[in-house]
């Protein structure tokens, strides 16, 4: 295995263009995945492109109309960042990714690039209309809905590197609820992220809601999002119907059956809306 450790994004891009390498940010996903595959006889030793020394990729920045999360920003960086209530759901997810030791090294971008159906950051990025800054042969800005293309698949090509995630700043509050087999250090059975804007009278102006771990890639709930505007927020949990989730395709696996996942997702959407209708109990 060859190991590259560039100090600049340009060098990293040149390496990515000329070699078949796997990028490495916090290494909390790549490493266990590789060790696991090797233990089961997979002989591939793909070369590694370590991004961790590229200073320009660090940090979370308020850029006026959006917040920019650099490719090396960790979950802990996110928890500690001073961000508006729209990011409350994202921060909740941050506190539930592994334990603190994993949060201190694991990155938000690494979580997205893994594109696991159970990635806790992903429904949040969908609900917040995040966009991915992709650097490479054709630099582009890709909306989250187009970035997550399927099971562990993204729009980031073999010669590309995600430089950052941009999240547009809007009014409203975000929230995240996750169901696992226990409280902490657990992979999600189902999870829901929501970003809701209400008017002075407490009526919903706009709703963006996404469900994870219930399909190959997490997805928004367009039918529910269309049904909610105009309704008082306190009525919202009662407006959630099974048909709003009918397009999801949960699977049976060791963590839960498909039927259980679907029932859990339905309950979690209601819970998320109910939580949002109570005065903000801000975490972080």
């Amino acid at each position: 295995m060859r190991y590259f450790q560039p100090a600049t994004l340009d060098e990293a891009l040149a390496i990515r263009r000329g070699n078949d390498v796997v990028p490495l940010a916090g290494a909390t996903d790549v490493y266990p995945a590789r060790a696991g595959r090797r233990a089961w006889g997979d002989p591939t030793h793909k070369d590694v492109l370590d991004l961790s020394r590229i200073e320009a990729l660090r940090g979370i920045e308020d850029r006026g109309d959006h917040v920019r999360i650099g490719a090396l920003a960790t979950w802990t960086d996110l928890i500690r960042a001073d961000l508006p209530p729209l990011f409350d759901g994202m921060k909740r997810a941050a506190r539930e990714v592994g334990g603190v030791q994993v949060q201190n090294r694991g990155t938000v971008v690494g979580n997205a690039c893994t594109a696991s159906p159970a990635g806790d950051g992903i429904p949040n990025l969908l609900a917040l209309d995040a966009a991915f800054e992709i650097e490479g042969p054709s630099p582009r800005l890709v909306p989250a809905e187009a970035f997550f293309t399927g099971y562990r698949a993204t729009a980031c090509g073999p010669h590309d590197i995600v430089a950052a995630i941009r999240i547009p700043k809007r009014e409203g509050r975000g929230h995240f609820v996750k169901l696992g087999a226990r409280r902490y250090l657990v992979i999600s059975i189902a999870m829901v992220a929501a970003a809701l804007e209400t008017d002075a009278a407490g009526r919903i102006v706009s709703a963006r809601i996404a469900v994870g771990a219930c399909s190959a890639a997490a997805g928004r709930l367009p039918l529910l999002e269309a049904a909610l505007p105009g309704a008082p927020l306190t009525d919202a949990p009662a407006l959630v119907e099974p048909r709003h989730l009918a397009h999801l395709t949960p699977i049976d696996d060791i963590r839960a059956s498909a039927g259980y996942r679907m029932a859990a997702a339905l309950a979690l959407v209601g819970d998320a809306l109910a939580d949002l209708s109570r005065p903000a109990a801000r975490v972080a």
Partner: protein
Amino acid sequence: MLEVDKDRARHAVQPQHAFLVTLKVNGEEHRLNVDARTTLLDALRDRLHLTGTKKGCGLGQCGACTIIVDGRRVVSCLTLAVMNQGKEITTIEGLANGALHPVQQAFIEHDAFQCGYCTPGQIMSAVGLIQEGRTRSDDEIRENMSGNLCRCGAYTNIVDAIKDAIAHGLDPREAMTQAVEAIAQDAGREA
């Protein structure tokens, strides 16, 4: 250009299989040749013979290998030695300064272990946690210690030990300073 900087410049564009790295552990610098795949945990245990840091799962799930790097607790099994060059690394061996560190003392007084295998990781994690200051309730302590598993089930006593270390004069902001001072003094003694 320093030798180390030259090394780095070369690594930048030239891939390598092995690296000559400088690891700063408990205040002392060590130069060693490592295969790129060597985890920081294996470098500490097998190369520097600092075996206080334990390997439980090797997959980031148990917390037995917790150490503190640049003021933040991390699992040393999920990071490569080569990714930690030049960073301040503190292991369980760096905590005591003649007397035990207050967290070590509290773990003994509260019988916060049975077999002891997870204990160095628990203690390093607790030192990190106290410094983070997220210890306002038992629940908050439990949440923030959730990365450390104890198969003997000493959790209740671990929470008590952490609260005791805080109550008995371990100012959260000083948890790390004490550890760092202990290291500086140790280094002085050896020099």
